[in-house]
């Protein structure tokens, strides 16, 4: 990494000039975005500076428990985000647990396997490897899961009559829900499939670009990117399937009834 160019805070401030220009344009065109834009930019600066400090001290401390604590915090935040992004949610603690549980299980599993089998840093839980990997995988799995749960809950509500018609003719709940389960899983898979299809041709992923900018050989950066993409697609798929089946289970019962009473009213 001999050709790594260290950025000064002045360089970064200079880069924000374009954003300021956007702010001026927004005022001029009366887009009403200045407040949102300013708030989001400020939030980003504060969050990233804090996370930089946090990661720096975490790397310095090398504590497995602190690493685990941060990972758990990330999973909780992801679960909350999944919960918040659905128009209709499963009522009660299960609504939260479906998102959080699948995040924890699949992402944890994939990240563990990665750290102990493929990348093998020393020690295996080294926060320098564990946290960025976990973050990238979890961010994508989170999007997939919230898309598929939103699709499932909307479809079950809208197609209640068609589902109950099948139940009344003696179908079991899985048969009756099959097309909607499939549809929900597809919705969760689509972002990963699209990302894999467009990568390298349309989009150069941020992680790879970042590595190249900081002086890593493009071939090596590509290898890391491939590893991450496979993990993202794999973990997202698993999380989507688990969450969809879990939610479908929560919205039916052992007498093969559709229990839409377990679903909250749409939030405005």
């Amino acid at each position, binding site marked *: 990494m001999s050709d790594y160019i260290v950025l000064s805070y002045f360089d970064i401030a200079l880069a924000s000039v374009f954003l300021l220009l956007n702010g001026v344009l927004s005022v001029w065109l009366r887009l009403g975005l200045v407040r949102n834009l300013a708030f989001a930019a400020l939030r980003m600066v504060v969050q990233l500076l804090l996370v930089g400090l946090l990661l720096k001290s975490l790397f310095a401390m090398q504590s497995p428990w602190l690493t685990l604590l941060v990972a758990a915090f990330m999973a909780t935040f992801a679960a909350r985000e999944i919960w918040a992004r659905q128009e209709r949610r499963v009522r009660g603690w299960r609504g939260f647990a479906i998102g959080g549980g699948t995040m924890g299980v699949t992402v944890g599993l994939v990240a563990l396997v990665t750290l102990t089998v493929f990348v093998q840093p020393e020690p295996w839980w080294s926060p320098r490897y564990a946290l960025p990997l976990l973050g990238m995988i979890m961010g994508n799995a989170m999007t997939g899961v919230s898309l598929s749960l939103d699709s499932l809950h909307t479809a079950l509500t809208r*197609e*209640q*009559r*068609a*589902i*109950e*018609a*099948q*139940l*009344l*003719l*003696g*179908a*079991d709940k899985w048969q*009756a829900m099959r*097309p909607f389960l499939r549809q929900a899983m597809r919705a969760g898979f689509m972002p990963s499939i699209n990302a894999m299809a467009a990568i390298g041709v349309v989009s150069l992923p941020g992680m790879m670009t970042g590595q190249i900018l900081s002086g890593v050989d493009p071939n090596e950066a590509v290898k890391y990117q491939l590893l991450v993409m496979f993990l993202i697609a794999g973990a997202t798929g698993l999380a989507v399937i688990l969450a969809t089946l879990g939610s479908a289970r929560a919205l039916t*019962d052992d*007498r*093969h*009834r559709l*229990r839409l009473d377990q679903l909250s009213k749409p939030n405005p």
Partner: protein
Amino acid sequence: MIHIESLKRLALGPIDLEVADGECVALTGASGSGKSLLLRAIADLDPNTAEVRTQSGDRSHTEAPEWRRKVAYLPAESGWWADKVNEHFMAPEKVDLTQFGLGDGAMDWEVARLSSGERQRLAFLRLLEHKPEVLLLDEPTAPLDAENTLIFETRVKQCLGEGVSVIIVTHDPAQAKRLANRHFVLENGQLTEAKP
């Protein structure tokens, strides 16, 4: 035969009712009195507590899909999950469409183009494919004209003749008189027998 004992569902019940083989019971009551809820509860489509049994066994000892094939509920508005009519039948080639004045080609029709009356008759035919022991009919002839109503009732009578027990929700006193042996009114969550 169907035997219902202390059925409870939200504000409904406790309700006791027994309908013998080949017997038809008419059920009336103001809109919102819970007639449909009662039928859904008997079919076990909504959570409820009750002792229910037919000659082939206790509901609590029967898997729910199996129960619903025997105790068949025809909702006021039928649901359809595929594009073509024949996809909703187990053996579309064996169904006699002419008994309901439906053309031979009806099996190839698209569900989206069916009239409400056609939907209702086809939904009844697909329900009969399972040879139910009990029929729960929820205002079945509401979308039908006078002539088709009588044809529909003839088919119900044929089921009664085969020993099927029928509970029918109706708003038409004349229909209740034509079909039913007994007549109950649902009010404040309770069934009371209407004296003729």
